[in-house]
């Protein structure tokens, strides 16, 4: 399993520590909401709505340098649109990894 990293955020922030702190806060605020919405939609078989949640969540993977996870999310988003939940467990592992990482930064 890939490990999230701060490379992109560091590149973006440069010496601007205020921005970095604020951006991390935005991630910490946004992520749990998107995760909950996703779980609610998956649990209630709203696969099309869940695909929209995956679309948003995959941006966080991009930001946190999770390139392989991002590729899985792209496929999962497409499959969900067609009602296929095949990658549900893999995706859940990824978002749990992000959740745990966000607690450490």
């Amino acid at each position, binding site marked *: 399993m890939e490990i999230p990293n701060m490379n992109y955020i560091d*590149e*973006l922030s440069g010496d601007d520590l205020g921005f970095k702190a604020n951006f991390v806060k*935005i991630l910490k605020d*946004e992520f749990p909401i998107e995760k909950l919405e996703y779980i609610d939609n998956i649990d209630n078989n709203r696969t099309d709505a869940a695909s929209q949640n995956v679309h948003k969540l995959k*941006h966080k993977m*991009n930001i946190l340098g999770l390139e392989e996870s991002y590729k899985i999310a792209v496929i999962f988003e497409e499959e969900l649109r067609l009602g296929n939940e095949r990658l549900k467990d893999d995706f859940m592992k990824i978002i749990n990894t992000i959740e745990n990482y966000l607690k450490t930064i």
Partner: protein
Amino acid sequence: MKCIIIDDEASSRAIVKKLCSTLPDLEVVQEFENAIEAIKFLNRQEVDVIFLDLHMPGFSGIDFLQTLKNPPKVVITTSDPDFAIASYEYEMIIDYLVKPITPKRFEKCVQKINSSSSIPPKQNKGTGSENALGEDLYINIDRRLIKLKYKEILLIEAKGDYINVKTETSEFLVHTTLKKINSKLPAALFLQIHRSYIINFSKIIDIEDNSVLIEKNVIPISRSNRPELMRRLNLL
């Protein structure tokens, strides 16, 4: 240059705002989490550049682009590289940034903005096909742009606020008007033969009195459109 950012995700807006702040030419005057609010703002105030996310719930970036009468320069920000070709159908789009946007790529984008000429005001293009470039048309279905080849389209039927595009293999219900799609179609291939129907001229099987047969579809010909249809037939 005054710019606005439209993106439903706060983190994405923060990234673009930060990137703008690193360059002297750009001033972010407002940011919006949905396109409707941005339209209201643009009715009151002019801007030079819009950074626009394509993938937003409800009212997508493409929907938004279609509402702009005298658009400023637009830079698309999205995670879907597949939209890139479709987005260049819109002349106001200067660049297409795939997330995550790096500072280096953003700098290049600003150079493009600076070197691009301003967008001329839209001309009234009538019902012809001046817009019809290439061999395909993109239609917006549930936030996805689906490519249709002109030659595969059989007919288009008006259905209230929607149109039903019938192709050789399937049908697509699109939220637009017959008039609007007519302006995008090549006039040499398509003809409106009734207030509710546009047909692909090359798909006609036969014409009988006041109707045209296309595959198994019998399409009425209105009295007012009949002369034009007859004029274009290669009659013996």
